[in-house]
């Protein structure tokens, strides 16, 4: 029996509208709309169970086949041109931290990273087992983790949105530009995505089935997640709250899970404090501030790959899909009965909001690498909405997601590679190398460890120390270059971006040099190789 909010005498009941008036004279009944569960979730009636089982079995088989295809697609896309791109600057940090002895790792963590140590330890072990540190070897674990993320997203989607939802989520994950980039990068991001997806899925399954096994898995995955990357806390905090409030979970498991999150975090706190105190490079402000473009990239996190800057529409479409999916899942009554709906929304939205707020207070952190932890949950949210919304709406939503993903996939797999082609530039220099030559990095490469990686591998030992300069104008004041100039040696410059020819001549003239050969290397960041010889 409910009362009308503005008309207290009006009763919503079967007996009539006005109190005290016999039913026969006022038979109006106000029907309160009720939620109709999706057809796929309607349980079969008793007596039809054998047939229902058969149907369910066939559905399972079909879903298994489709999942297999999705995983193969993911593996293929993640492995495609795996070693084609030169190492990215961040990957070189991974390489640098994971080679040599463990004391090097500690130094590297303190001075050049803002991440916990677990990934580097894993990579350290892997490189020693593999016996190689080539680009492909370094990236292979990420590919495997990427496929694992797709599979675990299917599991999570299955739990939240049913089999169809799980398949849609896995399909979107397989072609997610963000996942593709990180599955091809020797960094921790794809691993932390894997750990968190597993943690959330295991927690949901564990609380539903009251299974200690799954809850243990959730706790272990959560601890691993926090040891892989600090941003895991954006997901683990809502997960811990959700699990604490979940009915039927024993108190010791609740406490255990909170400890599994809190203890590693507390243990890492001193390291984090030290890393944060060193701060970011000033240069990060130029690309990681919360500009409109970066805000769009964050809002459309799962669709953010190495997209060309011009593809604004695809970015907007991606952001639109994410916002729609999260808002609908959170607010629309249609999805009210989906299990763990709020957990998925929180895990998808909190990282985005947190990073955007950090950007708003001036921190140069507006990058999707920090919101990557949200991607699996956003994809599950999209899938849940697509699987349970009106068909037309679902079709529009999925089509938009496919367009945004497609644009990202195409640009991510462009021929020129993902990152500046440092390897090709150093290779050519090595090919024409003469004893006594000196290689110098200019511009962004001044910070780019890729030069040291490839110098280490391709240049003659003893001559592979590569000084780095911000600009060519400062060359005359850099001691290693001054030494080389005084000795009349040939100089090789690799510049990112390419140097203006007039500026180059002028600067070299000041050194008493001239450019004898230049070559430009296309890619997402163009670089230029310059050979300079003394004027005679």
């Amino acid at each position, binding site marked *: 029996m409910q009362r*009308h*909010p*503005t*008309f207290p*005498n*009006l009763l919503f009941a079967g007996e009539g*509208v*006005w109190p005290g*008036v*016999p039913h*026969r*004279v*006022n*038979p*109006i009944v*106000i029907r309160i*709309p009720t939620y109709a569960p999706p057809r796929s979730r309607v349980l079969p009636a008793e007596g039809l169970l054998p047939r229902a089982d058969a149907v369910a079995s066939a559905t399972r088989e079909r879903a298994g086949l489709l999942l297999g295809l999705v995983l193969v697609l993911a593996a293929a896309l993640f492995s495609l041109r795996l070693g084609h791109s030169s190492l990215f600057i961040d990957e070189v940090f991974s390489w640098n931290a994971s080679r040599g002895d463990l004391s090097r790792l500690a130094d590297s963590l303190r001075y050049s990273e803002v991440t916990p140590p677990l990934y580097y330890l894993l990579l350290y072990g892997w490189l020693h087992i593999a016996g190689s540190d080539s680009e492909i070897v370094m990236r292979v674990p990420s590919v495997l983790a990427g496929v694992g993320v797709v599979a675990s997203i299917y599991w999570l989607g299955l739990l939240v949105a049913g089999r169809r939802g799980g398949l849609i989520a896995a399909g979107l994950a397989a072609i997610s530009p963000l996942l593709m980039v990180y599955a091809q990068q020797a960094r921790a991001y794809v691993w932390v995505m894997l750990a968190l997806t597993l943690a959330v899925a295991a927690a949901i399954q564990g609380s539903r089935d009251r299974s200690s096994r799954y809850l243990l898995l959730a706790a272990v995955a959560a601890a691993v997640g926090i040891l892989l990357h600090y941003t895991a806390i954006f997901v683990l905090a809502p997960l811990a709250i959700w699990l604490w409030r979940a009915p039927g979970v024993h108190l010791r498991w609740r406490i255990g899970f909170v400890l599994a999150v809190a203890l590693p975090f507390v243990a890492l706190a001193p390291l984090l404090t030290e890393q944060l105190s060193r701060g970011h490079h*000033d*240069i990060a402000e*130029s690309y990681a*501030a*919360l*500009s*409109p*473009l970066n*805000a*769009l990239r964050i*809002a459309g996190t799962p669709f953010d790959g190495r997209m060309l800057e011009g593809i*604004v529409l695809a970015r*907007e479409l991606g*952001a639109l899909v994410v*916002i*729609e999916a*999260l*808002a*609908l899942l959170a*607010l*629309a*009554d*249609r999805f009210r009965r989906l299990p763990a709906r709020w957990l998925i929304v929180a895990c998808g939205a909190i990282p985005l909001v947190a990073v*955007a*707020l950090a*950007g*708003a*207070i*001036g921190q140069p952190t*507006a990058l999707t690498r920090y919101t990557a932890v949200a991607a699996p949950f956003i994809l599950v949210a999209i899938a849940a909405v697509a699987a349970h*919304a*009106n068909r037309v*709406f679902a079709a529009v939503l999925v089509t938009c997601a496919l367009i945004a993903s497609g644009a990202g996939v195409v640009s991510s797999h462009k021929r020129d590679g993902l990152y500046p082609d440092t390897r090709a530039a150093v290779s050519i220099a090595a090919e024409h190398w003469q004893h006594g030559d000196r290689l110098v990095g200019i511009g*962004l490469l001044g910070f780019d460890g890729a030069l040291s990686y490839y110098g280490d591998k391709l240049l003659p030992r003893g001559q592979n120390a590569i000084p780095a300069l*911000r*600009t060519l*104008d*400062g060359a005359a004041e850099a001691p290693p270059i001054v030494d080389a100039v005084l000795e009349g040696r040939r100089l090789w410059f690799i510049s990112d*971006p390419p140097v*203006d020819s*007039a*500026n180059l001549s*002028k600067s070299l003239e000041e050194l008493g040099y001239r450019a004898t050969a230049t070559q430009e290397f296309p890619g997402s960041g163009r670089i230029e190789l310059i050979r300079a010889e003394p004027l005679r």
Partner: protein
Amino acid sequence: MRGWRLYGARAAALAALCGGAVYLTWRFGQLSELGVLATIFFIAELVNYLALLEGVVLFWRPRNRLLAPPPPDGTTLDVLVPVCGEDVDMIEATVRAALAIDYPHETIVLNDGHLAGKDNWWDVELLCERLGVRCLTRTVGNRGKAGNLNAALPLTSGEFIVVLDADHIARPDLAQLLLGHFDDPRLAFVTSQQCFQLDRHDLLGHQQAFFYRLIQPAKDRDNAAFSCGNGVAYRRVAIESIGGFSEWNLVEDLTTSYELHARGWHSAYVAIPVSVGTAPSTAAELASQRLRWATDSLRLFFWDNPLFKKGLTLRQKLHYAHTTGWYLVGAIDVIYLISPIVAILTGARLIAPGSEWTYAGLIGLYLLPIALMLTAYVGWRGAARSAQLQLFLAPVFAVAIVRALFAHPRRMTRRLQGGVTAKRSQRKVSWLTTFHHTVLALLLVSVGIAIMRPGVTLAVVLWACVLATALATPGSMLGLGRDMSQTLRIAISAPAVAAALLVALTVWSAYSIDSRSSQAAAAAPAAAEATAAGKTAGPTLGPPKRGVYLGTYNPTVAGSPRKPLSLIRYPGSRMAIFHRFQAWWGRDRFMAKEWMAAVKRRRAVPMITWEPWRKPVGEASSPNQRRGLLRQIANGRYDLFVRRWARDAKAYGKPMLLRFMHEMNGRWYPWAVGINGNTPAAYKAAWRRVWMIFRREGATNVGWVFSVESFAGGPPTTRSQYDAYYPGARYVDWVGMSGFNWGFKSFGGWLSFDRVFGRAYDVVKTFNKPIMLGEVGVAAGDPRTAGWVRDALRSAPKRFPRIKAMVWYDWRHPQRDFRLHGKALRELRTASRAAELRPAVRLMVRRR
């Protein structure tokens, strides 16, 4: 409405009036700098403000009626249920409820189905027979509810008449609530609050809480409450005294009340619902219903205007004028809907650039009290629904105005007759809502465009987001079912809300980075070193209070670094600014300290046009060098070089001007926007980075001159184009212009000073910065040259009062000789001694 809510609402209303006055005064002051769109927008704001003022005056004191005494015994009551083709089961429920009214009465069904050609009129007769009530089925007479009621008057005899619509279930105690008020013999009718079966959220705002809780009680106090057509008890004698219900207008309730009041009868309003009915559940049906109401109310306004109605008191006239004319105000809100779209798509401006924060503060002072006032009266949900509904119905009211203007009572009565609100099968789409949906789509597209388009004012984007969110609710009411409507509503409003948040956060981010950089600069070691001599290098050059600074560019005057500044050329003059060009590459790439020291000794200010290029020998321009230069500057490639300059500038210690990357709106320099791979965003970013380095180094003595080309005689660069690369008010101290009278036929021949600068002046003055003519010159060797100089120096400053500095280009350009000779030079010398051109140098302390 009483107690703290009423007093709080009144306080908020007064605050809104004060805040609105301040806001509108400020807006009015800006109009001269803005275009037509802003003026139209301002008019809409002004009209709404006046409507608010009128509302506050009229509805200041609502009347809270006590419960009526018991109705007198022995009176007779007729309950009339006019029907016209409604579903029979609905009519049955209504009639059964009417029969159950706990007072001696006769229930009579007035069946208009036959006259209106409805198929079920016979079913209604059968129903009445079954229920044992009298059914009066008309076959002739005027169509419409009023005609139906009038036809029944001679056939009924009750002393009082209660009218119930066919879809309204009456309360059993209806008579007790209404009839007791008739102890006043002058009372003609008692009207009551309407109530409808609605979704809990009342998405289309049918409860009209604001109307029933404030407006009707306030009208009641002034004896101007009007009948709402249903749940109204009339005194038969009163109705007969005006010849029956008014038939010329479809809103017979309003018109009849109007006539009764004009005859001196009284009315009463009971803020209690006495029946519950149905209401439109789709936006299209709602629009259709409100179009009907609006048209007929406006007909009353246009053709029987209450202000000139005899028999009404002044307050009654005002109340009826408000009721019938309110739709005119409502229609003006169309401007609110369209303006942001136009502003974003065309680049037109609604507010002056650089005044966003002032705008936000002042409009907050205005809108926040309005929101509080509405919330106090009807709760936040009711307030939100009122605002949504007003915006949604604005185009409907605009249509109603047109219809009403062409609907004279004598000519158009028949055409407008008929039409009732659909009760069951309601239309889902209508031509009336087409405009609304188009606007909604355009708003969302505009927001999408605006996010990626530099130069669009933040406030306009936010306004577009707010409008899209507001329109999402009625826009989603397409009769698609509750789930789909909700999905649609969320799908429309979520991106708008998210876009608003993202825009706000990005602005906050830019502000945070700036302030953090400033703080960092203050704490930087370099700044600490300077602590002994003050943390910063002191103030820069500000505009004079009166007059114009005069300056010159002449290399012989500027001199070489070793022998700088010879003023033999201008004996007796007092030049305030000495100008010099310096490129980033070449011999002259470092700051000319000796020259600047010489300028300092002259108590003048050095201005350096700082050009990031290698100056070509013997050529005026060489745009194709250093491709991607701006991006490189923005990315910090030249930070070391810039920092060195900044330190030198700070060490100089006295005011100096840096005219950086000038004439960017041309195509002859490598930093010009639109060529050489340069984008507006890159220009802005490069400027800000360089500016930031100077700030970090504490070189606050540097004044920044954003100097554009005036395109003498040609169309100037528009403000919206400038907005794309104008670095922002914070980064600019002076806005400069270059302009020459070349004297070439190909350049328009001999051009007056006004032709050279006039049109560009009108644009650059909107930056609200002091204006400097960074390069002004006239072709030498023409007999008109001296006159041109005299006009420029003596008369022009009066015609262009925002010009605060004028730097004469007294040198030979590669394409034209601008050196002054003979009489022209004497004019300059003479003028430079005048008091207006020798103002005291005024300093400006820059905010940190």
